């Protein structure tokens, strides 16, 4: 492409030592200056002075560097500058061409006249780096499409034809109908057409038939589900914190839904981006706008790093977080690797280190959090999401009952026959206060302190407490159970019953009125495992209250009052263990030493400690309610093995569905929780310990047509900073904003972008194969009111997209990489598309959109959160893969081998790799076997057990065609011998399914 050579930037305040004639001004400004800036100033400038030499100003040339004066006017021979050039020393590795030498020599001979101030080393593109004249930074020019042939279906084709003609290459003919419809389906919605869709299209004589299909696909909800996945790749969306703790983000699915919905509605792209950067600011009180800012928090977050003691180390972690954010913003919207300028000016693109910090300042108020959403908006969404979950839950419960109840009633009947009652669970320690404060089971006899006493079967605690000797066994999961009557319902902060480590540094205790008045909560050291159960308040003090708190292995804490659930259980930061010899029981205080005002004044009738979390039924029974318990062990012993497996799978699914109902109602979202921005300084070499000048939020001057100055002070509030950033990025004159997104669309439709590095439009990125087309598309996007679907419709209905994928030797010889697009390159299915396709073929795909994602893992918290991958089965998991919960450390091996990206890193283009492990996975994974079985069953149901018809039907569904004779001859005996499911597995592994022509 043609390089534009604009005038030197430095036209201001011209006054230099040398007298300058008019002609020479011209010559310096257009030739000598740019040449010096391009060839020399990169390494010899005011900031970077290699050899102590600065060649951006005449004065410093005269003074010279470590080796002495560089310039002696009129005497090239003794000018070091000239000597080094002639000796081919400088510029290193790239000696100056003859013509350029002559310019320098003549200039020195003329007395080295200078015009303007210092040269800007970033002004011009050189062999080593991009300058302000870099192609992608120039304003969009109005482009008139070239003349096209009658073959062209829209202006896109004209641009493509022009290049092909220039290369003396012909385009390929249109692909056959079957290929065409499959291609459109996979590209737009990520699923194959049904056999009937294909059959209907193949015979449809309507000239608009294809366009109608494209319109239908663009309007279907599958479009958003397919294209949101691309967006989530780019913004490295993950649903857990990553790093060591990797906590699950249970409500970040709302951002994923927002993206799907916005794409389906064809939200104008500039709006789409503005809301993600500053939705909370631009539309306060709008739930969707707040959810959109999930973009800002989609990346990992280092909990341990952010919470460590050392302030210096914490500052480094925060700077790393900001770099990740600046990098994501710069690359996603502008295709600029701004993050490379954190420690020094960008080595390849015209971005100053200061500008990196200006952009960092624009984002300095961004912090991760879980802001509250307006309740009404959440309720409205929840109404639609709840029913399908509840319906599945009902179906599942009734199936569970079907499995369990015969056995349950049998067990109960047998028990009744024997005159037995349900067994009350066995505690490890119990205090009935009938015999002093002795433990009636073990040896944890209580020591009464500070005036506490036992009388008429009760422990009376006025200001005192009671404490046990150390426990000889380690205690992890547990239940604390107690019957209590508080003396004064208005007292606050009273510890009732719990376990502590001997030095009091760790404890779990039932406490009264600590979080809020008149309510019970699970007190813990530093409040680490404490949240409000939001149970009801105590209103009368007449009766004894039965309380039981359970502490689960997985960190869940639940409370019960009088045998019924008290408020809502919650996931704590993890179970705490009390080592053998280092735990003791306390009644009447939370931990020791204990201030008298932290002791609950009350009477205790009984207390019990269990070394596991009791079930709700067990607690009800223990509280004296009339319930019959059939224990898990009793049931498991009776249920036949096959049903046990099904039951385990159902109970796993049930837990998730129950959680999903809670998640739907949870009025929070993982999104931006802005704070007043800390001051942003330029950090010398990126080191937070070495701050230099204070900067205000601003952009980079390298983008032509948009002012980099945000007009903000260094202490501007976060809202102004992000609003201005969003305006600056989405400004129609921003040269990169539209170019970058139309290139992404092209990239996904063709497998390669017009620029083959979608996140990098800088010096290290690719050059556009069709620069005019890129600019025309960018302009068209703006003219259409930023409609992405408009651009995609143009692309997908163009002749170039509709070409055959058949290879042609003549063209391949000339352009093997198909950069000129003489055919449509086949694309391999992505991991998600492959999984979704198999589910659809199996007739199992649940098309239900939106809502909390499914978990293909079980999870528990023990300091860090852990994820055990699970072979999941059931309708809850048969949804499109975009609804899989995207945890950073819970990777699916099958998706991974098909290049599903790591959500910790921005992935503008996925790798396409081929490995033996991929083959093994697609052959042997349980998911493949299950879907093959179900697909086979479906085919058998459709066509009966005629082998020939079965094979034909498998081909029609999977490949949209009937098998030819040779294929039938190979497949039919195979089915005969190994079964239809075995054939389905073969086809699932075949290249024809995996590669879309």
């Amino acid at each position, binding site marked *: 492409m043609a390089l534009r050579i604009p005038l030197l930037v430095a036209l201001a305040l011209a006054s230099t030592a040398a007298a300058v004639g008019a002609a020479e001004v011209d010559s310096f400004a257009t030739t000598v200056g740019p040449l010096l800036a391009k060839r020399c100033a990169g390494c010899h400038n005011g900031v970077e002075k290699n050899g102590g030499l600065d060649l951006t100003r005449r004065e410093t040339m005269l003074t010279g560097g470590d080796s002495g004066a560089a310039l002696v006017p009129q005497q090239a021979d003794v000018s070091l500058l000239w000597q080094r050039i002639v000796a081919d020393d400088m510029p290193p590795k790239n000696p100056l061409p003859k013509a350029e030498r002559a310019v320098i020599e003549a200039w020195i001979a003329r007395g080295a006249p200078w015009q303007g101030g210092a040269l800007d080393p970033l002004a011009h593109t050189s062999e080593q780096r991009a300058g302000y004249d870099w192609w992608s930074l120039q304003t969009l020019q109005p482009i008139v499409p070239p003349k096209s042939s009658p073959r062209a279906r829209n202006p896109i084709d004209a641009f493509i034809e022009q290049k092909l003609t220039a290369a003396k290459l012909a385009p390929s003919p249109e692909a056959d109908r079957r290929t065409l419809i499959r291609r459109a389906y996979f590209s737009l919605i990520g699923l194959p057409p049904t056999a009937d869709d294909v059959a209907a299209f193949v015979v449809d004589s309507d000239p608009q038939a294809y366009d109608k299909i494209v319109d239908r696909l663009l309007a279907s909800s599958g479009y958003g589900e397919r294209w949101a996945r691309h967006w989530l790749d780019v913004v490295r969306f993950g649903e857990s914190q*990553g*790093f*060591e703790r990797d906590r699950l983000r249970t409500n970040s699915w709302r951002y994923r839904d927002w993206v799907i919905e916005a794409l389906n509605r064809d939200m104008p792209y500039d709006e789409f981006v503005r809301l993600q950067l500053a939705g909370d600011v631009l539309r306060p009180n709008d739930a969707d706008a707040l959810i959109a800012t999930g973009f800002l928090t989609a990346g990992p977050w280092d909990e*341990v*790093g952010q919470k*460590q003691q*050392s302030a210096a180390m914490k500052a*480094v972690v925060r700077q*790393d977080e900001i770099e990740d954010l600046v990098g994501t913003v710069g*690359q996603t919207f502008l295709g600029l*690797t701004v993050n*490379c300028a954190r420690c020094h000016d960008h080595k*390849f693109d015209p971005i100053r280190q200061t500008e990196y910090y200006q952009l960092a300042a624009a984002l300095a108020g961004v912090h991760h959090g879980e802001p509250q959403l307006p309740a009404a908006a959440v309720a409205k969404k929840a109404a639609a999401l709840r029913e399908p979950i509840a319906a599945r839950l009902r179906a599942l419960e009734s199936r569970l009952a079907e499995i369990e109840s015969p056995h349950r009633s049998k067990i109960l009947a047998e028990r009744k026959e024997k005159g037995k009652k349900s067994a009350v669970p066995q505690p490890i320690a119990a205090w009935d206060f009938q015999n002093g404060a002795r433990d009636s089971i073990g040896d944890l006899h209580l020591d009464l302190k500070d005036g506490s006493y036992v009388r008429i079967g009760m422990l009376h605690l006025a200001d005192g407490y009671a404490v046990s000797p150390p426990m000889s066994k380690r205690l992890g999961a547990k239940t604390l159970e107690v019957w209590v009557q508080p003396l004064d319902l208005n007292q606050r902060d009273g510890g009732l019953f719990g376990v502590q480590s001997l030095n009091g540094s760790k404890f779990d205790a039932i406490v009264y009125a600590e979080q809020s008045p008149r309510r019970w909560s699970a007190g813990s050291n530093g409040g680490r495992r404490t949240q409000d159960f939001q149970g009801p308040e105590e209103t009368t003090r007449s009766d004894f209250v039965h309380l039981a708190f359970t502490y689960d292995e997985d960190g869940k804490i639940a409370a019960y009052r009088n045998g019924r659930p008290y408020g809502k259980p919650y996931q704590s930061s993890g179970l705490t*263990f009390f080592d053998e010899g280092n735990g003791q029981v306390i009644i009447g205080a939370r931990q020791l030493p204990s201030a008298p005002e932290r002791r609950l004044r009350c009477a205790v009738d009984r207390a019990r400690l269990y070394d596991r979390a009791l079930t709700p039924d067990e607690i009800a029974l223990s509280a004296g309610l009339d319930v019959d318990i059939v224990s898990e062990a009793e049931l498991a012993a009776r249920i036949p093995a096959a049903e046990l497996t099904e039951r385990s799978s159902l109970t796993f699914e049930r837990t998730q569905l129950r959680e999903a109902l809670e998640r739907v109602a949870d009025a929070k979202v993982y999104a931006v929780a802005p704070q007043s921005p800390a001051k942003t300084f330029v950090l010398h070499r990126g080191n937070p310990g070495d701050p230099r000048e204070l900067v205000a939020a601003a952009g980079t001057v390298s983008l032509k047509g948009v002012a980099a100055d945000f007009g903000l002070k260094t202490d501007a509030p976060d809202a102004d900073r992000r609003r201005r950033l969003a305006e600056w990025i989405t400004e129609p004159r921003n040269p990169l904003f539209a170019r970058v997104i139309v290139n992404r669309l092209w990239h996904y439709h063709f*497998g390669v972008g017009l620029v083959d*590095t979608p996140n*990098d439009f800088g010096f*290290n*990125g690719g050059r556009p194969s069709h620069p005019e087309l890129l600019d025309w598309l960018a302009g068209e996007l703006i003219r259409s009111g930023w409609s992405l679907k408009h651009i995609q419709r143009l692309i997908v209905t163009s002749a170039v997209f509709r070409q055959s*994928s058949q*290879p042609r030797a003549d063209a*391949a010889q000339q352009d*093997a990489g198909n950069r000129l697009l003489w055919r449509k390159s*086949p694309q391999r299915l992505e991991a998600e598309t492959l999984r979704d396709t198999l589910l659809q073929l199996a007739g199992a795909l649940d098309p239900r959109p939106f809502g909390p994602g499914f978990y293909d893992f079980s999870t528990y918290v*023990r*300091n860090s959160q*852990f994820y055990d991958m699970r072979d999941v089965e059931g309708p809850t998991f048969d949804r499109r893969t975009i609804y899989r919960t995207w945890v950073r450390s819970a990777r699916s*091996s099958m998706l*991974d*081998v098909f290049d599903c990206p*790591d959500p910790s890193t*921005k992935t503008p283009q996925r*790798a*396409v*790799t*081929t*490995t*033996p*492990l*991929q*083959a*093994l*996975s697609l*052959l*042997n*994974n349980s998911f493949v*076997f299950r879907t093959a079985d179900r697909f086979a069953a479906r085919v058998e149901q459709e066509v009966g057990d005629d082998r020939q018809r079965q094979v034909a039907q498998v081909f029609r569904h999977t490949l949209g065609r009937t098998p030819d004779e040779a*294929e039938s001859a*190979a497949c039919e005996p*195979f089915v005969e*011998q*190994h079964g239809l*499911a*075995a054939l389905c597995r*073969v*086809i699932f*592994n075949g*290249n*024809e399914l995996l*590669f879309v022509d």
Partner: protein
Amino acid sequence: MNNISRSNDVPNRRDFLWQAGGGLGGLALTAMLARDGELTAAVPIDAGLKTHPAQIYPPKAKYVIQMFMAGAASHLDLFDFKPELVKRHGQPSDFGEPVEAFQNGLGPWLKPIWDFKPYGDCGKMLSDVVAPLGDVVDEMAFVHNVVGKTGIHSQATLLQATGFQLPGFPGAGSWVSYGLGSLNDNLPTFVVLPDHRGLASNGVKNWGSSFLPSQHAGTVIYPGSATPIASLFPHRAATYLDPEGDAATQILLANLNARHAATRSDDPRLNARIRSYELAARMQTAAPEALAFADEPAHVLKLYGLDRGPQTWSKEINAEEETFHFSQKCLTARRMIERGVRFVQIWSGNDNGFPRRNWDSHEDVARDHGPLATGMARGAAALIQDLKQRGLLDETLILWTTEFGRMPSSQGGKGRDHNPYVFTNWLCGGRVRGGTTYGPSDEWGYKPLDRSRPTLVYDLHATALRLLGLEHTQLTWRHNGIDRRLTDVHGRVIEELIA
């Protein structure tokens, strides 16, 4: 664009050839299945291998075995003897400067938990708990002034494992796989043997290929478990599938794929997939053979302490069980490199859960380090001896590392807090200069003695790559506009360590 870097979009023909380790020419599947007996025959070492342009030095080593102690092993109690701590034991610690502690580990000076004695011709002082390494200490090179960047487990693990403390970068083994290519078509180039209890901080991210092609990702193998490699064989749900059916599946698939490829002869991806099924079939035979110890003579099993086989062990962490598991991984590693695997990563210790199942001894060094170090030392010493007697030690670089060190002061009496300011790595084999100690730490083992010249992970990675014949500044991959490399923009080859 510079010709070393490659973009990571659709592979072109050259990329494909690289991926396939040097050309198509594979056996036709049907022919291969017919000659079932030959499936285990390894492809001749070095056959048709293409070299990466970064391979500019004659290689000294061909393989790497990295041992990674998760949770941060204490240099002070294992390898870096500090008489000053013995002298000052129990006195209030005074570092002479403010210390950024991770938790609150600035209690009194704490002397090494075990006594140290000199070993070998070099007279290196080693702790009693790693005494078995005394037999091979003349082969080992210690670096006592390694400095980290963070006292946070996840970041420190990433830094040592990938060279970056943020997630999203390829593991060191992935870079080696990318740089050296495969020596063996039957097994992956980068194998990871995690701790038997589970994964360390960051889980699978420590060996992901990230932006490098996925064939360079570490393949997880659990030696001795029911399914050592995921999906190696059909899932048990496939009741209808017998071995004959599986073979017929392969033949039919190859047949259909060949017909499909016939009209699309220009697309290397199609042939690559066909070949990948052939390789998968070979791996099904080669991997179980590589993982079975049946052909190991009794004296070798005895050397590793594996002669008694698995036992029923106590629930508490104990030395015998640690020895079994660590040694099992060491012997597996040897069998892997004998079969051409380039990089084997052995993990000791998993996450930071509680009770301690790793080296993060905040409470009690003796309780956790005792059994872990005993097992590690026995397994590692056996591996070094075994490699040496087979003549493989010169070709195999062993790199022992951890997240960071531990403080010379105590924390809660018997434990030590994190010390990212100095810790120890050691290297062995691969023509490393044995019996040497490089880069001392200060008298406390708190920071390097010469603070201006610490050793960074980049230096160790640069040195390891050099031993493999690779120039670390040239082993690059362009990702999002940057030529990424294992050593970021740093790295200095430590010539003193190279024999």
